[in-house]
């Protein structure tokens, strides 16, 4: 009989795993093969893949009708009644085989517009409202975000379906409802009212120009006013909806007519409790409608197994409509429905479930101990949960959904981290969450590991194994760095170390404050984590750093749109320092006008469209009797300043410093002339590809810019451990991470900075001239905030990491590093361990975030040519995993061009 390698090794007293310091977890050994989902989940996932995004007017019709009928009532209560009506009129749909039921709408993959937030953007193109919206600054993001250019997820008009906002399909007979609804909100939506008042800000004209030039990507006050935060499931899980209604009734009795020392908003508590009570009643009815529907289906179902499943669903929905869940399945069903309720109250992306493996632990533990459930059953439920979460759509404008989000809704589930008393928090349920992420590969929920040196090796290797299956998740976040940031940022609001350990990631990588709550289940007590802070990534959204630098070179004039965007500086720079000073001066002007105008938008939002669902969920609204807008949440300093294109800016500044001011090889005018003339190249949109390597020379080019272009390209670049270049990054970060202190959000709290690109590096790159780093006009910026520009990191991953960690990441809400690895580099168990080594070392050096695309570039190129063969190919973009065919062409080109680390 032939001897196998393992046999020979055994004889010699060696095991294949010997080198790893102990034995590898048992599952790993036979896990190189990718497993499939259970038949049930696979079928449900398949329905998702074949379903188009659909829009309905059901919820908005009832919301609007009741809202209008209650004119004259207190705003909170009016909104409470409207939301209640919306929930009560959602048609329940249950699909055969579903274990978890419920959705945002009656559709499998549905969403709906909220004209009360902004009524202009969802109108069909031919509509005059849309035309009017185009003329104002906020529509320019739409113009450069060709959504769906990647080939998939575009619903075109067909039959009785009309395409809307470039992505969604709506029934033809509902279009008139939509238009009528929209007209009712003209001049009254948060967008319109906010716009009326933001124009009173003296710097408004600059803001308008900044938006049009795409120095800034979008307004946050009415596009996605909530999200990028971590939800909190504690209250319904502990008290059930009946308990919460009782709390509201007690609140009403305690606070009606009594300001309790607060002469400004003390009296508002009555209205808040009343409004929340109304919403809770609506949510209960909504649950019960699912129970009714399940009963109706059970009555006619012939298949005994399916009939029994419908009956179970009816029982579960009836129970959780009132009470604390009794078992794991009920708890999972409840948090899923809570999530749907949350994302139905506002235009929301990035409402993250957070650390659900720890939240659901009490039910998992007790069910397993009692033998009420098996791990296989838990896994199947988690797979169903993945499909359900992936079906969440967010209805917003094309610029926001396509340009910024790439169609993703960022429902981030975090794993690992530490417990309240500083012990590793990873648990068996989290192992199963990772497993479900492998067996049922979908975009949602995306997974993040809160990496801590204390976490067990088995858990970390399981996470690596998941990563290796090519899904792009989990992303790795630095737990220690996150805690440091949370302590620093929320210390003034009373954050302590225990609660800092409850933080989690909201959206793609927004570090969000949390809190522990003590949950009691069958007499046993558990500390469970949950969100406790306002939305993040609200405030100043995505300043294009290279575009601000362009303004310095062009004296504040934007050549793409022929507009004087920033006040002309009229300076001749004698030194690099003078130029850099001007850059920061312009930067401050941009931030300032966006802070004040967005503060107004958010102020209108909190007065007219205040949160009620999320307000009853998160501490301490129910205790305080105040919604978010009245600072009911524990932590309120969440407004931030986001940027994009940092690395292109760093490389450009270095070249300006070196070529113009030190070597004096070119004058600043010569360099600017070359940039304006795109180094003799055509524009990227003429070529149809947005990566540098595909660009073509203009036919009439005489080669006059060849030398300067080559000098710009051949110079030192970020990502190679070169102190001269990295020093520019460190200097910028030192300024940038402190710049938020100068500004004040509407909650009278300072700003901080957030550094990730999401997908903005494509549309904002498209609106930026060639840059001094040799990047051509219209091409995509470097992705993330710490990734090198594709092809410029020539000295390997370690040099890149060294460059990236030249500054203190814990001063920023995040930083972002994307790395593309060839599958060969991580083959086998040894490959897993080495990938963990790589990740761990970056974390130890202080990197905040790293994520990997483990995919062969050849596959991606083929997928661009034959999208039909790659419907379920997943790639990591910048903070999230998305189906390849659902992302725009510029981002696809960028992902293909990223430097691939082979490690062979």
């Amino acid at each position: 009989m032939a001897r196998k390698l393992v046999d020979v090794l055994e004889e010699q007293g060696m095991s294949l795993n010997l080198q790893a310091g102990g034995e590898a977890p048992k599952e790993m050994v036979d896990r190189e093969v990718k497993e499939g989902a259970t038949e049930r989940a696979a079928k449900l996932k398949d329905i998702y893949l074949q379903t188009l995004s659909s829009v309905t007017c059901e919820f908005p019709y009832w919301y609007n009708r009741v809202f209008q009928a209650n004119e004259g009532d207190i705003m909170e209560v009016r909104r409470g009644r409207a939301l209640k009506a919306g929930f009560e009129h959602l048609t329940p749909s249950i699909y055969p085989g579903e274990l978890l039921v419920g959705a945002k709408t009656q559709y499998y993959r549905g969403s709906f517009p909220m004209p009360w937030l902004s009524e202009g953007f969802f109108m069909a193109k031919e509509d005059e409202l849309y035309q009017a919206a185009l003329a104002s600054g906020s529509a320019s993001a739409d113009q450069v975000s060709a959504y769906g250019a990647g080939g998939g997820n575009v619903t075109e008009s067909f039959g009785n379906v009309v395409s809307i906002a470039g992505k969604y399909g709506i029934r033809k007979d509902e279009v008139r409802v939509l238009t009528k609804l929209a007209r009712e909100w003209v001049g009254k939506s948060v967008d319109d009212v906010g716009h009326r008042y933001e124009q009173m800000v003296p710097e408004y004209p600059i803001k308008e120009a900044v938006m049009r030039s795409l120095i800034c990507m979008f307004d946050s006050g009415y596009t996605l006013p909530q999200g990028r935060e971590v939800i909190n499931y504690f209250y319904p899980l502990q008290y059930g909806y009946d308990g919460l209604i009782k709390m509201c009734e007690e609140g009403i009795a305690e606070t009606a007519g009594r300001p309790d020392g607060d002469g400004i908003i003390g009296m508002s508590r009555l209205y808040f409790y009343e409004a929340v009570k109304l919403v809770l009643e609506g949510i209960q009815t909504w649950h019960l409608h699912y129970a009714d529907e399940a009963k109706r289906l059970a009555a006619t179902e012939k298949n005994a197994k399916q009939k029994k499943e419908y009956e179970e669903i009816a029982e579960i929905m009836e129970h959780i409509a009132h009470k604390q869940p009794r078992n794991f399945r009920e708890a999972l069903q409840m948090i899923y429905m809570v999530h749907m309720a949350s994302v139905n109250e506002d235009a929301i992306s990035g409402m993250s479930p957070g650390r659900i493996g720890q939240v659901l632990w009490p039910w998992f533990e007790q069910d397993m101990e009692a033998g009420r459930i098996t791990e296989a059953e838990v896994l199947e439920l988690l797979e169903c949960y993945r499909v359900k979460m992936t079906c969440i759509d967010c209805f917003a404008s094309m610029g926001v959904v396509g340009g910024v989000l790439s169609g993703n809704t960022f429902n981030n589930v975090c794993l690992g981290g530490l417990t309240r008393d500083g012990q590793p928090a990873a648990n068996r349920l989290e192992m199963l969450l990772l497993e479900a992420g492998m067996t049922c590969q979908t975009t949602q929920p995306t997974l993040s590991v809160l990496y801590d040196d204390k976490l067990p090796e088995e858990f970390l290797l399981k996470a690596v194994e998941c990563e290796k299956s090519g899904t792009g998740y989990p992303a790795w976040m630095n737990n220690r760095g996150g805690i440091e940031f949370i302590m620093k940022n929320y210390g003034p609001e009373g954050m302590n170390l225990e609660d800092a350990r409850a933080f989690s990631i909201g959206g793609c990588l927004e570090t969000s404050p949390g809190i522990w709550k003590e949950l009691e289940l069958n007499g046993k007590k558990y500390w469970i984590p949950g969100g406790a802070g306002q939305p993040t990534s609200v405030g100043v959204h995505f300043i294009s750093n290279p575009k601000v630098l362009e303004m310095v070179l062009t004296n504040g004039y934007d050549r793409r749109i022929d507009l004087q965007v920033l006040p002309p500086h009229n300076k001749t720079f004698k030194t690099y320092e003078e130029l850099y000073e001007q850059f920061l001066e312009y930067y401050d002007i941009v931030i300032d006008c966006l802070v004040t105008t967005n503060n107004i938008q958010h102020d209108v939002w909190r007065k007219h469209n205040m949160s009620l669902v999320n307000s009853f969920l998160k501490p301490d609204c129910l205790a305080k009797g105040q919604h978010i807008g009245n600072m009911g949440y524990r932590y309120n300093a969440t407004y931030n300043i986001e940027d994009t294109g940092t690395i292109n800016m760093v490389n450009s500044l270095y070249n300006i410093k070196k070529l113009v001011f030190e070597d004096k090889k070119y004058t600043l005018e010569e360099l600017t002339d070359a940039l304006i003339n795109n180094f003799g190249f055509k524009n990227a949109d003429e070529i149809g590809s947005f990566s540098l390597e595909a660009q073509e020379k203009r036919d009439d080019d005489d080669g006059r810019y060849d030398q300067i272009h080559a000098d710009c390209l051949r110079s030192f670049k970020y990502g190679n451990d070169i102190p001269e270049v990295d020093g520019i990054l460190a200097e910028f970060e030192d300024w940038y991470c402190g710049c938020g202190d100068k500004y004040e959000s509407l909650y009278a709290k300072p700003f901080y900075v957030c550094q990730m690109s999401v997908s903005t590096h494509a549309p904002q790159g498209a609106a930026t001239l060639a840059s001094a780093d040799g990047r051509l006009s219209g091409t995509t910026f470097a992705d993330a905030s710490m990734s090198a520009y594709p092809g410029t990191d020539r000295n390997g991953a370690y040099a890149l990491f060294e460059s990236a960690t030249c500054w203190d990441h814990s001063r920023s809400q995040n930083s972002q590093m994307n790395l593309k690895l060839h599958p060969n580099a991580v083959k086998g168990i040894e490959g897993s361990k080495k990938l963990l080594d790589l990740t761990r070392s970056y974390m130890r050096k202080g990197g905040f975030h790293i994520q990997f695309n483990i995919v062969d570039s050849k596959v991606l190129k083929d997928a661009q040519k034959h999208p039909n063969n790659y419907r379920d190919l997943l790639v990591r973009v910048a903070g999230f995993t998305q189906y390849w065919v659902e992302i725009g062409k510029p981002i696809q080109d960028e992902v293909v061009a990223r430097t691939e680390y082979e490690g062979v």
Partner: protein
Amino acid sequence: MARSLSPIGVQQDLSGRIFDIQSYSVHDGPGCRTLVFLSGCPLRCEWCANPEGLENRVRTLFRVMKCINRTQDCTRCIPKCPHQAISISDEKEIPLAIDWEKCRHCESHECVDACLQEAFVPASRDMKVSELMKIFDRDRHYWSGKGGATFSGGDPMYQKDFLQAVLKECRNAYIHTAIETSGFFPQETYLTTMKYVDFAFNDLKHMDSDKHKEKTGVPNELILANIAALAQSDWPGRLVLRSPVIEGFNDSKENMAAIAEFMHSVGLTEFNLLPFHRLGDSKWKSCGMVYPYSMYEATPPEKLEALQKVLLDLGIKAYVGSDTPF
């Protein structure tokens, strides 16, 4: 700013010729490593994957794909060459004809500066021991416990003085070292170098000396003697023999059996079979050389498995490619 732990002031600092440094190298020794390629090799294997490292001189590479002469009539390099070694080519695939004999002795490389497309690049550069140590010092944060530095080439022992100096520094700095060598060096050089090495890959491309000479340019007696001497010494390191599998050359059962016999005779147990690949093809062209193996296919997995089986049956721990326990 973190302080350096290195001695302050001028130390003796040898210079070596290096044609590549790769970080996060995961297939060249235990753990994650930094891989340094040193120029110069005593062998001339016809299938060589790193032809730019064969000679210990700064060679200029001409990367045809980058040249824009055909598409944009660029001729910037031609007048800049002081040896008149570049001219327009009549060949279909190669835009510029290079007189490589003239290039051979050039030390100024004007073509490199002239070309804006980076079609001409120097294949190697000179680095001091201290410069290399600085890179290791940076990279070691990322290696994890098992990792370290691996020296490859060419054959790193070709620059023995520089290599030994670096290895000694590594030992002082507690850096794990690995080497990939042909073993074709005087025994004293070989054993002295190995004193400072923790993990060695020694190639053993054929057990028949005549055949060995036919395809690699040198006989194998010295190599076998060195391996035996090292294996039977008190050297505490780990020695893994290995060989690319070359079709029709060393892929016979007989050769495997001879290898196993030799290994048992000197007390060695680990052998790494490496699949042949053609990735070096374009580099041969860039060096102006004809690649004798350009028509050969990558070793099929079945072939590798069959040879592995032969060795395993003979009690040798045979690994295929990167599927190793380190």
